[in-house]
């Protein structure tokens, strides 16, 4: 990952006559890292809130043990994990000057896996919902839908972002600006993967075991 970043950073000398003491592309990516840290705070708070609600917030609703099974979430997780791998191939393709077609191909595959992940998540939400387990039932269900839903919203925006980038690649070609944007989408996507590992463990694995 860091090798990729350094490379894109070095490629970012859009203004060689500017002897400014920094390089815009790497700085933008640095700023994005900081934004992601801030975003991670939101997830940590939601996880902390969930950890409280799964014990103390059950009220008259179901407990995690009664609600969850591991089947669908495992498939979901696999889809997202593979998508992180395919995004890695996309970035590598960009780094080593693979054809645009191949780079975009990996990106399409990544987004498709993201869509599968989302589809399963929504299906599961739908199942729970129709059983009467809506977020209005208990503090636990509120926390569950919000935490997993927040992650799902992030994946959704990642997919939209990826589609926009593909359209922009068509307009601009694979220039430094788009490379930088693609690297930032990559950081975002990989972060969501890491967050999901935490969610899968905390919500589903530990929920089923509890």
């Amino acid at each position, binding site marked *: 990952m860091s090798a990729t970043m350094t490379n894109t950073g070095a490629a970012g000398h859009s203004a060689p006559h500017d002897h400014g003491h920094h390089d815009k592309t790497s700085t933008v990516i640095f700023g994005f890292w900081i934004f992601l840290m801030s975003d991670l705070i939101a997830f940590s708070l939601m996880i902390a809130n969930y950890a*409280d609600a799964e014990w103390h*917030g059950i009220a008259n609703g179901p407990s995690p043990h009664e609600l969850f099974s591991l089947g669908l979430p495992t498939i979901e997780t696999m889809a997202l994990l593979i998508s992180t791998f395919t995004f890695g191939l996309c970035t590598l393709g960009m780094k080593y000057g693979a054809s645009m077609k191949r780079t975009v191909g990996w990106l399409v595959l990544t987004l498709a896996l993201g869509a599968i992940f989302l589809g399963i998540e929504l299906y599961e939400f739908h199942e729970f919902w129709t059983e009467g387990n809506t977020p209005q039932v208990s503090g636990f269900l509120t926390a569950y839908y919000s935490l997993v839903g927040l992650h799902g919203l992030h994946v959704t925006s990642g997919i939209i972002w990826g589609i926009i980038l593909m359209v922009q690649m068509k307009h601009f070609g694979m220039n430094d600006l788009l490379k930088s944007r693609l690297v930032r989408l990559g950081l975002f996507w990989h972060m969501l993967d890491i967050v999901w590992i935490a969610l899968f463990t905390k919500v589903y694995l530990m929920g089923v075991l509890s």
Partner: protein
Amino acid sequence: MSILGSLDLNDVFIVPFLKEPTLSTGIAAGAGGIVVLGALAVALLLTVKGWWKPLWSEWLTSLDHKKIGVMYVVLAAIMLIRGVLEAVVMRAQQVSPAPGFLSVEHHAELFSTHGTIMIFFVAMPFLTGVINVVMPLQIGARDMEFPFMNAVSLWLSVGGAALVMASLVVGHFETGGWTAYPPYTGIKLSPNEGVDYWIWSLALTSVGTTLSGINFAVTIYKQRAPGMDLMKMPIFAWTTLCTAILMIFAMMPLTVASFMLALDRHAGFHFFTASNGGNMMNFANMFWLFGHPEVYILILPAFGVFSHVIPTFSGKKLYGYTSLVWATIAIAVLSFTVWVHHFFTMGQTANLNAIFGIATMTIGVPTGVKVFNWLLTMWRGKLRFSTAMLFSAGFMFTFVIGGITGVMLANPTIDFATHNSLFLVAHFHNMLIPGLLFGMFAAVNYWFPLAFGFRLDETWGRRSFWFWMIGFYLAFMPLYAIGLMGAPRRMAFFTDPAYFPWLVVAMIGALCVLAGLTSQVIQIWVSVKNRESLMVPAGDPWDGRGLEWSLGCPVPEYDFTTVPHITSREPWVDAKAAGKRVMDPTEFVDIHLPKPTGMPILVAGVATVGAFALIFEMWLIAAVCFVAMWVLVLIRSYDTDWEETITAEELREGYEAHKRLVETTPKVSLDDEFTSKNRGLILEEAV
């Protein structure tokens, strides 16, 4: 439900008064009227003078960090006037015979808006504005790293403030204080739009602040002049860096908590409800996970200001630079470890309270280090009591008293007796008035010439200081006393006659503070009128020490003609000691500055309309605004022609012109510092 959601005629400010004319509804209608008439008067003035166009093209669309900073400070000043007026009304309420002239709800709205405004729309824009103007100039940067995002931050804050102002005209604000604890602020107990005003105005400004934090941190990490390693950075840049890191980590808990509260209220969720497994303590924890670091977000920049004003007006190098830097870092780290002291009485175990109590007292240590740093900087210096220096000295004197009552409150056993009393109210005003406002007033008086090219009037400045200083003591020392006698905070009226004399003194204090604020308005007015005699075109009117004073006043759009190589902590002092009046130029090269754009104000404007729609449950309009906002961002992402070039030749000419000006400006002694003889950069070295 109609497209206008829950909005109806009764929400218009004048209607309750017409239906039931009392003094309380009359004051509410009057306040709404002031907002409406004020807006109309400004619009009329701009039209008559033909200022719309220059306002738009030179200010509102500008991405220049100095102009953005000035606009932040203007926002803070407008909101400060409202905040102080509210305080005066509340003080008047408590000295009038019980039950006073305000309804209980109206009084509750007043203390809620007063707190919300003072923290989020006075303190935050004030310090963000000062940082914007000064920090890049101190570290040799030409702008913030992300100028577009900087403007978006500004306009989101303006949008949030506009919503709080709108609450005077349309509907009500909430009545649960600036902390808005559920379950009181849940939909059952606060069914009207008040809490939603609080949620969405804060949502706008907290997103803006998070983005500002990212901007400041990246600018400091990546844009410093060559040679300026971190331990050569000016202290104000250090305190800005620590503040920025706090903003990055601490604003998110507020955003998350307020979104959760919104979901509880409008989607029937159970984050903080009193039933169905909600847990209101999670709100208290998240709010103060934001709220305590917030205290240091507010106070650290002011510490930075004092660390420049005091050395300048003492004619001495800052004492103990390294210890000040480490004290700042220590405060920033510790600020995340003390949040529970805001609710010692809410049911955790005694051991947990003890741990947080000790952590709280620990913060007194690095803060104490700083006070000694400033005192020892003044020790044997040749002190000149400018307005900025007076505010700094007044700060030290007063802040230490607040610090002592803070250490008292940090002890859980004492806190159990004094929590929720006026003692606490006196304590935090004792911290924030000197620790934030005095710092920002000092900053404005000190750095004003950088932005506008002229000094501020000293006579009215000093008057404003004495009014503020005396007003503060009269207004808040009585609150300590009656707080210890048992007077709770947030009461609409008191019936205990023992409090009355103290409340009268506090009322006089509030009027005194109002006189201080008025003096500041007069100060600005007089200074603008006499600006010719106050001009300091050669820059450096105070025998300053930082890099920012090596520039002419006002600072040109591009800030530096060439970015200097830094070899010491006080490069400008070294240059002056070597007999120079300008920094040696390095290499003239073409530079790029961001072009003005109306996009930030448009994005934030759409976001503000969307937020207003959410407050009154106009879901369709809110959704349209949300989509529109992102479409605007998308349009901007297609715009790759965002910079304009300033050529090396123009910079060389700028440098030569400044050098000629400086060399032809006559020398004047320090004794004439505050007279019209001071045209900048002329002060002989202090003896």
